[in-house]
């Protein structure tokens, strides 16, 4: 390249394109986000922080808590829970269908984690299959419906973070709508994490199982670290 102007134009184009991609596009796509109505309720999500939590956010910013703590929950995939909502008129047939599938698909293990049963049904499990693949859940729901029961699938987010109880699903853009500044953090060097969860994504994929508060008031033990 012979000319300074050409270098300048080359750099201008390269940076301009990436500016359009990672500055302009996010502002256009995410900058206009609004509260969304939560399905089957009059709630909206997210709602702004109450005053005390807002002050907490400023304490978080001033002390650089994001240097050691993250606000993101990661998710490695999803699994399905099968829930029987009504045992129907022939509970023994439901139990037989459940047992047949159990021995077919999971001969070596029970997939139940909560051994709750439907009341007055002669022992029909409420959650016959938990954390199973979508195909198996589909087959199970169909078989239960064939013997007169009502069943539905709940989609559950899985991953180490979720199993540790840090959230019910991965963090999404809406969670941070009212944060200023947004401080996701990129290092988990401290023992505490703020937990965030919402009913919204749950509702988008199935009825809520366990709901958590959308906002947890921020508080932080003085300074690191308990290890």
């Amino acid at each position, binding site marked *: 390249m012979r000319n300074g102007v050409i270098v300048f134009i*080359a*750099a201008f184009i390269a940076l301009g394109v990436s500016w359009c991609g990672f*500055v302009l596009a996010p502002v256009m796509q995410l900058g206009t986000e609004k509260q969304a109505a939560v399905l089957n309720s009059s709630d909206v999500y997210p709602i702004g922080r109450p005053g005390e939590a807002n002050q907490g956010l400023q304490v978080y910013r001033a002390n650089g808590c994001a240097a050691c703590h993250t606000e993101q929950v990661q998710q490695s995939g999803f699994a399905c829970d099968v829930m029987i909502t009504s045992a129907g008129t022939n509970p023994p047939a439901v139990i037989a269908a459940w047992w047949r599938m159990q021995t077919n698909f999971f001969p070596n293990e029970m997939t139940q984690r909560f051994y709750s049963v439907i009341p007055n049904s002669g022992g029909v499990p409420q959650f016959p299959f938990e954390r199973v693949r979508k195909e198996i859940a589909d087959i199970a729901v169909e078989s239960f419906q064939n013997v007169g029961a009502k069943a539905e699938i709940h989609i559950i987010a899985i991953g*180490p973070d979720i199993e540790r109880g840090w959230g019910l699903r991965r963090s999404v853009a809406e969670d941070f709508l009212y944060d200023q500044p*947004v401080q996701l953090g990129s290092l988990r060097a401290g023992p505490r994490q703020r937990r965030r969860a919402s009913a919204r994504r749950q509702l988008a994929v199935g009825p809520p199982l366990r709901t958590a508060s959308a906002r947890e008031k921020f508080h932080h033990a003085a300074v690191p670290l308990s290890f």
Partner: protein
Amino acid sequence: MNPKENFDSNFGEASVPASRLVTSLASPIDASCRVPLLVLFSGAALWLVVGLLLSLAAVMTFHKPDMFADCPLLTYGRVQPAANDALLYGFCIPAGLGVMLWIFARLSRAELALPLVPVVAANLWHFGVLVGVVAILLGDSTGFVWLEFPRGGSALLFAAFLLIAISAVATFGQRRECELYPSHWFLLAALLWFPWIYSTANLFLVAWPVRGVAQVAINSWFATNLIFVWLALVGLGTAFYFLPKLAGRPLQTYYLALFVFWTLILFGSWMGITVSAPLPAWMSAASSVAAALTLVPVLAVAIITFKTVRGVPHGGISCKGEPFCYIKFGTAAFVLSALMLIAEACPQISRVIGFTWFGPAQVQLQILGFFTVVMSGAIHELLPCVMGFGLPFPKLVRLQHWLFMPGIVLWAGSLAVGGVAQGMKLGNPQTAFADSTAAALMFLRVGTTGLLFILLGSLLFATNIFIMTLKWKLALFKSLLAAFKAPLATPSASASLRRDRAVAEGKGGEVKP
């Protein structure tokens, strides 16, 4: 300094014509850079020491958590960003700008244009960094990674950068050869890069913040473009100037360097959005693709360096710790840190090392291992030319290299390994979370030794620069004193006075009548 003499004669043989690299030992060119460079470098050396001291204070939290527990000023969350910013804004950028001004003047075969402007700007810059670092320690950080300085500090930095850029572009415009050398491309692009990303980030995040996670996208874009692309542009531009100069053979090759330039600015600027970020999936996907493509310029840099260094008589490989070794080691560190950054963008790998010490390890390798080493090598090489006298303690240059090299390997290496160990435990929900942080603890403690080595090395660096500044100021003072004491003189006497003063300033007695 020897290769310099035979450089021009060797130069015409290979792929880069001699006209593309203009070297001149004419001292007025060097002398014109003297004051601006001294201001930039001495401030930078001071910030390097301060930044490393703050880093050490931060890492002490992991040795003795209650050490600074009662002192909010030294809370980890404040000291850590203050240390990072002192290193990046305090050392890296002014050192890079100083070296850039000198390279532009040398390649243009012209004296530095508007030499007073960078002097003012350098003072402004260092004052801005001081404002920013103090504000972070007092709890007035903006909360955005690598953009923690509050508005006042950022405005000073921005203004100072523009002033230095004006002087650099004016010097570039004075050049006598039309043809550009590869260093020109990298350094010119860096001049455009910083004001653009810095103003964008400050406007969209601090002045008129956008809503929600768009902030995250912009912050990641800014951080990657500054830490990876800007440092790479300036560091590689400098390395591509000094490697052929010190090796005494041309850059291998001009066209490969052109290729690196294009691919680096095209792909590198798209990196940085992690897979885990709560952003639309297309962003992290685009970032991962860009990271995979960035592998191309990174490998090309390795090839250029290896081929340029390979044929050098007496030690393309062996190293005694002179500036040449600095540049070689720095370039190798760049390749390694870029590979680490690319690995982080790969979803499968990031699932393990995300949120661990691996990320900080990469940043430390980029800032300390690559940029600081290349810059200190370049400064050791150019400062004697600029000042007109040698370094006061040339042996410290070698000692510094032998402190930096193991220090950086130990510091960045143990953080990276600790990060992997931490990530293995973090990914297993049966392991208690505290176990995952404890897994990295041992490595952090080992790494602190490395940090101490680097700190010692930086002290040596600062010693050389400060003694040099002091010597120069003393000589200047003496000449002024002599001028003051001298009797009101006849024209011939005042001419001899001017000559004395010129000698004292190291201009070698060249006096305009």
